[in-house]
């Protein structure tokens, strides 16, 4: 270790500078703004104001949980099916999973507006085949759909990468010991995929909770999420202090949920 001491330090200089500029400094400003007023004096007013936003926080967390669960329900079987295919088909299917991510997030969300609108793609089709149009845009369901659609690849990828590496002889061993297909999945494949599931949950839940824009465009403003409130504080109200304190609380919430997740995955690793 000593041998590479100075060299390693030198090499790490750019990263330390980068981290200080773009990670530490912003964090410092978030905390600073949270506890000061517009005049720069220390105050707890921002924190007190937060109580007004408790319903928004709760809605964000609730939507985040629902979107994450739906992602998990879709991603797990998808990842399993992909991992069972031949290498060539696996590559193609993974490419298809990633494909939407090559397009701008904004464009994807706008396209969903076009699809879900009262006079949009789905409803014009329904009307054409003689079914009454369904109101979909500007509902909570539309917001969750937007989240699931946008973050699904982040759930599929980690689960798939764990499953693709599973030793198939484990499956044979499970069969050998008397497991039918259901038992193989329940007692062998699911427990061994837990590390992928945990990182998938983290990677979907965090952006879902903090997202804005999706809720504005697909929720029509009636399903404000905490990300939207924060954005408004900076873009419209110019109340940096309240925005910062909202961000701080959101950050703490996310860190807490990640800690809980890490606790699970640590436990997982101990067993795994």
């Amino acid at each position, binding site marked *: 270790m000593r041998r590479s001491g100075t060299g390693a330090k030198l090499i790490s200089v750019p990263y330390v500078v980068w981290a200080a500029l773009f990670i530490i400094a912003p964090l410092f400003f978030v905390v600073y703004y949270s506890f000061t007023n517009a005049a720069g004096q220390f105050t707890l007013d921002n924190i007190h104001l937060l109580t007004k936003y408790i319903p928004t926080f709760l809605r964000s967390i609730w939507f985040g949980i629902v979107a994450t669960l739906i992602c998990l329900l879709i991603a797990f079987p998808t990842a399993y099916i992909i991992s069972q295919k031949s290498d060539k088909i696996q590559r193609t299917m993974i490419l298809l999973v990633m494909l939407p991510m090559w397009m701008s997030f904004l464009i994807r969300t706008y396209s969903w507006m076009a699809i879900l609108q009262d006079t949009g793609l789905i409803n014009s089709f329904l009307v054409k085949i003689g079914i009454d149009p369904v109101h979909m845009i500007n509902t909570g369901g539309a917001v969750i759909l937007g989240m699931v659609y946008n973050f699904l690849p982040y759930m599929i990828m980690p689960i798939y990468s764990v499953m693709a590496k599973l030793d198939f*002889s484990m499956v044979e061993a499970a069969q*050998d010991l008397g497991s039918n297909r259901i038992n193989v999945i329940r007692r062998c494949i699911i427990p061994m995929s837990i590390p992928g599931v945990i990182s998938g949950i983290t990677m979907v839940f965090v952006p879902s909770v903090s997202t804005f824009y999706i809720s504005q465009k697909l929720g029509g403003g009636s399903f404000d999420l905490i990300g939207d409130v924060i954005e408004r504080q900076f873009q419209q109200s110019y109340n940096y202090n309240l925005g910062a304190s909202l961000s701080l609380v959101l950050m703490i919430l996310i860190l807490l949920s990640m800690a809980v997740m890490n606790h699970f995955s640590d436990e997982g690793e101990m*067993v795994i």
Partner: protein
Amino acid sequence: MENNVIIALKNISVTFGDNNVLKDLNLNIRDKEFITLLGPSGCGKTTTLRIIAGFVNPDEGEVIFDGKKINDIPPHKRQLNTIFQRYALFPHLNVYENIAFGLRIRKQSEKQIKETVEEMLELVNLKGFNKRNITSLSGGQQQRVAIARALAVKPRVLLLDEPLGALDLKLRKDMQVELKNIQQRLGITFIYVTHDQEEALSMSDTVVVMDSGVIQQIGTPIDIYNEPRNAFVADFIGESNIIDGVMIDDCLVDFSGHRFVCLDKGFDKNEAVDVVVRPEDVDVTEPEKGMLRGTVTSVTFKGVHFEIIVDIGGFKWMIQTTDYHPEGANIGLYIEPDAIHIMKKSEYSGMFGDYSSFSEEFDELSEIDEEEEE
């Protein structure tokens, strides 16, 4: 004999792509015996085992278990269990839960499970390891857990796919003895796959020597060693000098320019044959007293004996002797009648048993290749 056959393979053929892995294989396995499928990599021994386990479906032929055809019965419904090459223990479960896996599937009560697991841990000398994680165990311990896990569900037949391949030599020897003990104590059938001839000879009741998808010989270890059926078996099991000879009459064979008395009968007069002489069965004498004479071309000290290569009329013999003979020495060879074994000519004639290209290094290299292939 026929009555206590537990598994029978009848006219089994398997093809992977254009690779004919097994060709019309027939094998009867008796209840409670320790049978070993022995052969080089790619000979079809593992495929045979996987057919019995149910992981491979033969293209042709029947798999009979206890008198019933089981071709269409999936692995989880067969009354046999496998020890996998790399153990395939479940990393998400501890030692206790690994062993309990099959019992939980069979929905046994907690009490029953605990009893069986404790019994199994004792059987494999791992008492007190219940809560240990699989990854914290050494290779030998993992091996024992794999054995306990397979035996916990009380199979009638245990299939072992090169189970000791990953262990070091000392541990392997210990485990050989232990496996044999377990087999005798439980009185169940063991079907063992290996490419290690020593392992096969020291553990088995019956050895099945295979090459390129065909059974070359079935017999007791002593039969296989002393009475190899063809040049492949003679060469694969131990060291052999395999010389072209001509059967003059019953118990009289001509090779290397000399007529030898032997014990083999039943060949045609003047039939061309392969003659096997084991390196340890040749006595070295003064040149003038020997039946054959030759020059020592290389000497290797092996501890128990010297391994010398002797050039006799252009054919190089390997001879093991406890006396030192320097390179270049002229020596005589004396061969007792019971040291000579006569084999019919086969497709393997001329491929083995000549030590002119012999070198230890070469042998080791080809062994490494073999392992990589698998």
